[in-house]
Each structure stands twice: as C-alpha cells, then as structure tokens.
C-alpha cells in the first residue's frame, strides 16, 4: 500500500492538469484524487467535493492533500474534520505549493514513503 494524494485547486483545469503531472511522475498505481471549482462550477473549492474525493481515495497508509490558495485549505480542513476520527488521523494537508508539491509528494508516495515522508517531501519545496 502507498499514501494517496489529493489535489484541491480553485480551478478544475489546474486540478486535472496537476493530477496528470503527478500521475506521470508516480506511475499507474498510486491513488490520486483531484477536485477543483466551487459548488457552482466557477473558481473556488467545494467542501462536499473534497469530502467525496477523500472518501474515494482514503487508505490506511493515509492521504496527503495539496491545496492552492485561501479557501482551498479551509474547505479541506472542514472536509477532514467531517471524517470519522480514526480515518481523519491519517489525513494531512501539506503547507506546500500546489503543482510543485504534488509532484514531489507523488514521487515520494510512489517510491513507498510514509505519510510523514510524503508531507515532508512536498513541504521541502518551500525551503527551496
């Protein structure tokens, strides 16, 4: 088993493209979810859609969430808090840029990294 990656952007295009790049780095086996856009389909994020994706890709090795700006993080946190506590414990939101962090996280996850290692790999981007 490996850590799953969830990509949350304000833009559905950015979310889809970032997932494609992460998939290219990770190979075919990694669980990668993505969601973008507000409940009306415009720029924004949707707590409901995030919760659905989390549910779809969750596994016991955990989920690392990559977010872009503002409400993407807040809505992701609320979606995590809605989960059963034992599942939520294995979900982390990375303090990392979306695209660059997702690629790092996907590479680390695909090569068998733990949830801590995947989150660190993504967050390392910020340290240059």
């Amino acid at each position, binding site marked *: 088993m490996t850590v799953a990656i969830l990509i949350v952007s304000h833009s559905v295009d950015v979310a889809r493209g970032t997932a494609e790049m992460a998939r290219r780095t990770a190979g075919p086996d990694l669980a990668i979810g993505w969601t973008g856009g*507000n409940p009306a389909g415009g720029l*924004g*994020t949707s707590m409901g859609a995030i919760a659905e994706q989390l549910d779809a890709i969750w596994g016991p090795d955990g989920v690392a969430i990559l977010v872009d700006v503002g*409400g993407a993080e*807040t809505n992701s946190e609320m979606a995590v808090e809605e989960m059963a506590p034992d599942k939520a414990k294995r979900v982390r939101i990375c303090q990392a840029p979306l695209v660059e962090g997702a690629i790092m996280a996907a590479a680390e996850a695909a090569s068998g990294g733990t949830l801590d290692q995947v989150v660190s790999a993504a967050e390392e981007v910020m340290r240059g």
Partner: protein
Amino acid sequence: MTTTQDATQATALAILDALCARLIEAEAELNALDRAVGDGDHGHNLARAANALLAIRDELAPLSVPEMLKRAGKAVVMSVGGASGPLYGTLLLEQGKGLPEGEASRADWARAFTLAVEGVARRGKSAEGEKTMLDVLGPAARAFEGAVDQDFASALAALSQAAVDGHLHCRGLHASRGRAAYVGERSVGQDDPGATTAMICVQLVAAKLAEGAA
C-alpha cells in the same frame, strides 16, 4: 432577566430573512470592494450563501435556535467556494454549538458569540490586526460581552458601535491574510470585503434585535 424570548425562532427567522435580503442586495457593492484588494467574488460568494439559506428555509423554520444556527452554518460551508464560506459557516456553527439546548440568557449569547469568533480565528489560522472579518467580529464580541449587564438597548448599541469602529480601524490596516494579502501595502486605506460584510451583518442583527426589544 432576558431569555431566549429575545431571539425566539420567529425572531431568528426574521433576522435570517433580513440578512439574506441584505447580502443579495449588496452583491455588486461587495464584489467591487473585493476587486480592489482580492479576486472580486466576495459579493457573489455571500449571495450564494444567502440563496442557499433561503433554499432550506422550510427546513430551518421548525428547528430550535441552536440547531437552526448549526444547520445554517453547514449550508454556508457547503455552498460557498471562497475563503469566506467556511469562515462565516464556522461562525454560525460555533454560535449554535455554544448555546445551551434549553433557554439561553443574554450572557449565554454573548459567550457563544465570543467562542464562535475564536472558532473563526482558529479555522482561518488568523488573528485580529490582519485586516479581515476578525477585525470587526473580535471587537464586536468583546463589546457585547462587556455590555451584557447593561440594559439590552445599550448592549446592542455597544455591539453595533464596535462593529463600525472595527471596520474603520480595519481600513487602515495592512492585509496579511487571505487574498487581500496579495496586494499587501496597497490594501492600506481600502476596506476589507469580509470586514465590511461582518459590519453589515452585525449592524443588521443589532438593529433587528433592538426593534424586537423596543
């Protein structure tokens, strides 16, 4: 002593209707504020929240006030895609959670309001002074709690005044949180959209409660 009489279900629903109407009306004005310091969607986001609440009005109507607030908070979180959705949603949700299930005193309301504002700060990982809705909500909650032993009209006046003062003070701040932070120094002298909606809402609630109390 004041009781939940001050905010019966009927009062709560009347306030809900007034808030929704006001936010829908203010959409263009709030978008314009957000265009100057953010991405121009704050009015749109709050109009969505208002419409989502009106869409479940029948579901809200029979609920106790705490349950009504919690249900409304969830609807706001689920319907708004911007940063303000989960924050205003949290405000309502925590206000609902902070009230006792039975009769709530005015002190209970004030305490729950303070706790709800703290919940927003936690949720947004933010604090007063960062040029956000918190620069209105924080002073408003403190003023209301501080005036809770005065007569109701005075307490409401203090609440309303603190919101206006907070909004004015916020205008001079330098944004360091949310999208407005992107314009940094240039945000000084501009109104923060979230602080503006917070002031509008606090004033409207105070006015409605004052009407009821008069």
